[in-house]
């Protein structure tokens, strides 16, 4: 598979001198579903605007199928965007909004009718053709925005939080639909979300961003199971992140106790972040445990209970199918391979 879009050392600075993207490099493969995941304001939309051509990077190169397209205007790029704030045409009805791109490209009327019809069906807006877009709900507008971009079958579709305004059920349906379309039409999707579950279920590749820096690129399982730093671990799923140090290979010390782990290659006594997923904390009788704590609260979450446990130096989050009474003392244990050791990120260390 070839790279369809490549970003090389992209830096974006706005007039006020603020650096929004700090040296972003990324290859997006053809027919891939790539998701940008990161907290609000981390530069996801800005990255999409670079790919779409609305913004020229301050420095760095944008390549499309190997060709540099830094200053190619948006209308000449084989890329369409589902805008975060929809940006529908207020003077056109639903049908004409969706047909817009096809009309610009002078597609024959018969073909337009067919393709717009397919899209209306896909986004579940049949019967709304003649409706003015100003009289649609937020979720309906969002679906028109998806249809309007998708109908053009662009090589690369950029989707900026395209499902944010939908209710849970519709969102799940649309997630499945979008994924199906992407695979059926063999399109490249660049998807933005700050919903980590959405990212994990839909993507081939996830790009985790924070403050204009790519934190990690990888498959959903990589990102979830092998987070590269404490930020990723914390952002993807819940995590217990504890300060620790590595006295020697395969031994980690935190909250004053030593535990076996599987990580090697750290300098003796190097300070590290220790990450343990809530579901990986085993609850055992307190008298048999190295580590104990008092249960502070228990919340039922559907599939499991979430317990907050006040231990030594750290407040633990534990997911378990069995609830322990609030106020009771419990013991905690971990399998060595469930203890993830991460290098402290230099400089602007992430505070968990």
């Amino acid at each position, binding site marked *: 598979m070839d790279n369809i879009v490549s970003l090389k050392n992209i830096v974006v600075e706005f007039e006020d001198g603020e650096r929004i993207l700090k040296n972003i490099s990324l290859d997006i493969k053809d027919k891939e579903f790539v998701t940008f995941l990161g907290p609000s304001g981390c530069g996801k939309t800005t990255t999409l605007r670079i790919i*779409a051509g609305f913004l020229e990077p301050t420095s760095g190169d944008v390549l499309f199928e190997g060709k540099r397209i830094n200053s190619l205007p948006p*209308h000449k790029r084989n890329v369409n965007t589902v805008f975060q704030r929809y940006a*529908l045409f*207020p*003077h056109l009805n639903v049908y004409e909004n969706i047909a*817009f791109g096809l009309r610009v490209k002078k597609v024959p009327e018969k073909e337009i009718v067919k393709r717009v019809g397919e899209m209306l069906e896909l986004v579940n807006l049949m019967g709304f053709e003649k409706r003015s877009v100003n009289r649609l709900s937020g979720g309906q507008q969002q679906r028109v925005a998806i249809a*309007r971009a998708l109908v053009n079958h662009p090589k690369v579709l950029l989707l900026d939080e395209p499902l944010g305004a939908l209710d849970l059920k519709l969102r799940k349906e649309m997630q499945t639909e979008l994924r199906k379309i992407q695979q059926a039409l063999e399109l490249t999707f660049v998807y933005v979300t700050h919903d980590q579950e959405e990212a994990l279920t839909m993507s081939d590749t996830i790009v985790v961003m924070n403050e204009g820096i790519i934190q990690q690129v990888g498959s959903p399982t990589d990102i979830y199971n092998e987070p590269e730093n404490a930020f990723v671990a914390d952002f993807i799923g819940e995590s217990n992140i504890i300060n620790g140090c590595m006295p020697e290979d395969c031994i980690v010390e935190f909250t004053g106790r030593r535990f076996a782990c599987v990580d090697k290659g750290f300098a003796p006594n190097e300070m590290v972040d220790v990450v343990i997923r809530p579901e990986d904390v085993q609850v055992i009788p307190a008298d048999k445990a190295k580590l104990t704590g008092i249960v502070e609260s228990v919340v039922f979450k559907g599939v499991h209970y979430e317990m907050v446990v006040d231990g030594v130096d750290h407040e633990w989050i534990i997911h378990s199918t069995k609830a322990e009474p609030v106020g009771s003392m419990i013991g905690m244990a971990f399998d060595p391979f469930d203890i993830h050791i991460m290098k402290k990120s230099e400089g602007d260390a992430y505070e968990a």
Partner: protein
Amino acid sequence: MKLKVLSAPYLVWMVIFIVVPLLMVAYFAFTNESGGFTMENISNVGQYANIFVRSIWLSVIATLICLLIAYPVAFTLSRMEKHKQGTMMMLVMLPMWMNFLLRTYAWMTLLGNNGIINNILGFFGLGPFKLINTSGAVVLGMVYNYLPFMILPLYSVMEKIDKSVLEAAQDLGCSSRSTLFRVIIPLSLPGITSGITMVFVPAISTFIISRMLGGGSNLLIGDLIEMQFLGNSYNPNLGAAISLVLMVIILVIMTIMNQFSPDDQVLI
């Protein structure tokens, strides 16, 4: 109910200063000096057809020139940063702070045969050109005086066009040109129609501009009407008839214009 009460002062105003005068104009138009009913005034209007045609022609040209100048100006203004827009808008409106007569007098001295423009041109060995007392000077006067009335409504609709909508058009394959025709113009249509109205109506009925810049040879309907009431050819009945016909013409033109604006933006 509350709305009705609130609108009462305006209703009274409207009746006293709009409805009553209109009825009086209609009354005069259909009566002779002794107060008897006649169609003579109306049929006499026909002999001034050439003046009507000239008035319509010159004001249409002036309106079109205003539109052509104002459109890019308004668009540029509307895309500026918000805090700059206010200052720029004030500059556009600045000429309006000066008295209308004064502005037009200024053009007289500029355009005159010994005026500033001909003097400057003469300095380079050109001219003198006949600038004043031409229909061109009348159109110039109209454009100069009424341009802000075109810019203002255009600006106020364009300002509401979201930048992201223009980006969406580009994203879907529109060059700047097709963005203009497919998105910007359709979205600014209400501004275009109200701008045209606000320039065309005063332009077609002006009499000061044509008198001061057009000399005697560019008589417009406004001058004709004025002459019937204040001039030496005193004939208020004919004047009323001409006014009535002018009103009908404007009404017809506005109705046609309304066909082009979206349903919810009817002008009259």
